[in-house]
């Protein structure tokens, strides 16, 4: 019954059949739409609409890969993704500013709701109460975590939040020099330097713990835990030193650690910044994350970024609006506190949902699990011949290990065993590795790490 003949005009199988010019799903205009619209516009062709472009430069060649259909795109991206060796099916002991934590399953479906995902910055409050209230809640949660009076709607990330905090300290104090601990994450320090350089502000990176300030310093900025994971009991002393010099005390905190450790407000912080990623945000090769920014009430008019405030509508019903906008670039232009405009709202929302799901017990439990497992791991590694854990100061969930061989070599060997090792910090400290252990690491993983390291000694 196989039929071999077929009328060439039959709408038939196969790509050779002459399909009508295919529309793109992202562009609804059809040929008839276009014709009708051009007639209304009074133009002969769409090309006419581009007549203001200097003719020699119009319609340049574009050397781009051919368009992919959605299926091909997904296949291509799957192939690319296969070249990443990620933590999904491996044990991961890498931290250093980006942390693998449990993300409750409710976070993603809520955050990815189209109404949150595809709305703009809430300029029209009557139809943006969803975003506005979640920002108000985010601000409140950041205050609760840090113990500070006020917080903004979020910054690009923790590092730029620290930089903006230092700039704010300069604006507040009228000084043009900032002091930063050299145990702040080196990348963050680099960001601070960049922002400071723009404004012509000097940066002193002071040896951690030895903070000698002068009357020139606008602030002292420290990280707690520091880059090597250590939590210092001296933070209160540093804060006093800063205040004694008339400087602000700026603390960069890990938000998960705040489930267990004292709020920076309690030891004198004037500004607290944090990288929010640890609260429900995927690693995503480094971004998008969100910076948390909180400070004392008296600085609110010098804060950078969006701020949401509570108010009422004409009928007296509670509502929220963007407020204190006279600080911002769209009103104050070159005299704005910062140029920041679009920030990381959706990620701020993710952290809010995450915290709402965890609650105080959940966050404390996560912090405790990190603490316990990291200390279990540290003890296990410290016991290995050839390895030594640096334990001169208390730590939270990251610690430094001295390795018998260059860490890069060890890491390559660990990867073959399905383990993502710690950060090679040999550039800072010879033969050292910075390891991170969180609630995501099972005891079996930690034991496997110890076994592997022993073999690699």
């Amino acid at each position: 019954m196989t039929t071999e003949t077929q009328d060439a005009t039959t709408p038939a199988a196969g790509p050779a059949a002459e399909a009508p010019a295919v529309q793109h799903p992202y562009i609804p205009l059809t040929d008839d739409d276009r014709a009708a619209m051009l007639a209304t516009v009074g133009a002969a062709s769409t090309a006419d609409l581009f007549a203001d472009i200097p003719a020699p430069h119009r319609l340049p060649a574009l050397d781009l890969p051919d368009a992919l259909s959605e299926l091909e795109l997904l296949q291509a991206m799957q192939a690319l993704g296969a070249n990443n060796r990620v933590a999904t099916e491996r044990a991961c002991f890498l931290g250093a500013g980006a942390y693998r934590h449990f993300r409750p399953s409710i976070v993603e479906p809520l955050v990815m709701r189209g109404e949150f995902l595809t709305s703009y910055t809430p300029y029209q409050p009557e139809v943006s109460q969803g975003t506005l209230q979640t920002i108000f809640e985010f601000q409140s949660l950041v205050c609760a975590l840090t113990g500070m009076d006020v917080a903004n709607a979020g910054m690009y990330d923790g590092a730029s939040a620290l930089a903006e905090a230092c700039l704010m300290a300069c604006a507040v104090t009228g000084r043009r020099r900032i002091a930063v601990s050299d145990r702040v994450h080196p990348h963050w320090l680099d960001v601070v330097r960049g922002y400071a350089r723009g404004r012509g502000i000097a940066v002193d990176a002071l040896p951690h713990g030895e903070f000698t300030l002068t009357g020139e310093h606008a602030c002292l900025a420290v990280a707690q835990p520091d880059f090597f994971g250590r939590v210092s009991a001296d933070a209160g002393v540093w804060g006093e030193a800063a205040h004694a010099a008339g400087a602000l005390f700026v603390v960069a905190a890990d938000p998960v650690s705040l489930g267990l450790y004292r709020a920076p407000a309690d030891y004198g912080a004037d500004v607290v910044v944090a990288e929010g990623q640890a609260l429900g945000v995927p690693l995503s090769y480094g971004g998008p994350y969100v910076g948390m920014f909180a400070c004392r009430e008296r600085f609110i008019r010098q804060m950078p970024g969006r701020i949401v405030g509570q108010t009422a509508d004409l009928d007296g019903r509670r509502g929220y609006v963007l407020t204190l906008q006279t600080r911002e670039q769209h009103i104050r232009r070159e005299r704005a506190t910062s140029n920041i405009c679009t920030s990381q709202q959706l990620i701020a929302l993710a952290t809010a949902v995450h915290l709402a799901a965890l609650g105080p017990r959940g966050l404390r439990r996560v912090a405790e699990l990190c603490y316990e497992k990291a200390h279990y791991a540290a003890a296990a590694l410290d016991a290995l011949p050839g390895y030594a854990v640096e334990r001169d100061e208390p730590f939270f969930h990251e610690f430094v290990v001295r390795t018998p061989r260059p860490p890069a070599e060890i890491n390559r060997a660990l990867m073959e065993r399905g383990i993502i090792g710690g950060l090679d910090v040999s550039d800072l400290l010879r033969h050292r590795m910075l390891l991170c252990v969180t609630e995501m690491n099972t005891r079996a993983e930690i034991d496997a790490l110890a076994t592997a390291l022993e073999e690699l000694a």
Partner: protein
Amino acid sequence: MSTQILEKTLMELSHAGRVGVTLPESDVPRSAERPPAALLRDELPLPELSQLDVVRHFTRLSQLNWSIDTHMYPLGSCTMKLNPKVNDAIAATPAFAEAHPMQPAEDVQGALAVMHGLQRMLAEITGMDACSLAPLAGAQGELAAVLVIKAYLESIGEHRTTIVVPDSAHGTNPATASMAGFDVVAVKPQPDGDMDLDALRAALEEHGPTVAALMITLPSTLGLFDRNIVRIAEMVHAHGALMYGDGANLNAMLGQVKPGDLGFDAMHINLHKTFSQPHGGGGPGAGPIVVSARLAPFLPSPHVEQVDGRYALADPPHGIGRLGAFHGNFGVLLRAYAYIRSLGADGLRAISEAAVLNANYVQARLRGAYDLAHDRTCMHEVLFSGRRQKAHGAKTLDIAKRMIDYGYHPPTIYFPLVVDEALMIEPTESETKETLDAFCDAMLEIAREAETQPELLREAPHAAPLRRLDEATAARKPILRW
């Protein structure tokens, strides 16, 4: 049934003892090493909710938002276009979402290949030589580019301190210039919307060798393509200054013209406008910058390079350093990469064509009822002035609020500042003719209402979750947290 509260806050919903998720018990022995008691906190005043309450709270809040997924959202200068869900799906795959930013390059070749490809494609689309993906939003891209220019100028021994910015510019332009340590000199447009060449000449001459750059938006924030752009670039270059392009409006130019061909030296691109990254209620976005060859050595860190077929992160030799902790908003970059690959050169060109046709169609349909700021072919957005309606007693703000009653998100209003009662409509390529027609019908009806019953507009919106909000009190007596 009108309640005083649309939705309680998390704290109002909190009840001591509730939890929203379970966490495991520890599977390791309790460490003998205890954290010093002095370091521990005793209270942690976070809200305590059941799982259902958390889900319901955020679901209900979401419904109070309007969004591209629910409404036409013709916000000028914001390019509120379709945000393809396939890009979200790709960004959510563990192969990308679980990649750690500190992993060695050899273990993240997939992620680096995406970044390298995007660097190349953005440079190609804009006709520039090099690209950095590090900036985390448009404004940070501006800052990065201006710092790059500054570093370049310093490298050739030029210490220039002024940046010229048209006064129609977006607020981030002058704010950026000042963050980068420059003084700002403003120039006005001429009546047809193009830059006033005499004013520019005067500014360049007055500030002479101190001028580092002109920051100009193309198409301009008036929705126009400056017909003198090549001449402008020549003038700027003749003074030894550089051409900085604010690329927020790139959606009008894809495949139509390359800024690099017009003499631009540096430019930032808003991936969350032209390249379909969802706005997320205020980010995340990404603001990659593209530059000409002479600026490339000054780009921020990290830059993705390909050596012997392997990708690696590198620091440009004279780079301005890092802008954020890691390598840019990777998830956003990934979406933009997927978007460009979904469209190819022809698709991108078709995007611009449709975006510009749609804006001109709205202009043609509404020009009888609303005053045009400039009566000429517009690009991807059209700029009206509500001055005629204001004379009847309904300001642009009132028109905007009334649009809500008709089911349309208001356009951008009172920007740019140089146009009285500005009302800037950017339909984007994503809307159908039917939607545009219904939108224009509503705008025409509102124009009629403005004449006959302006109080209807002044009291609008009537059909939103809330009526107008008291912004003055919010700023005067700020309540910023529970």
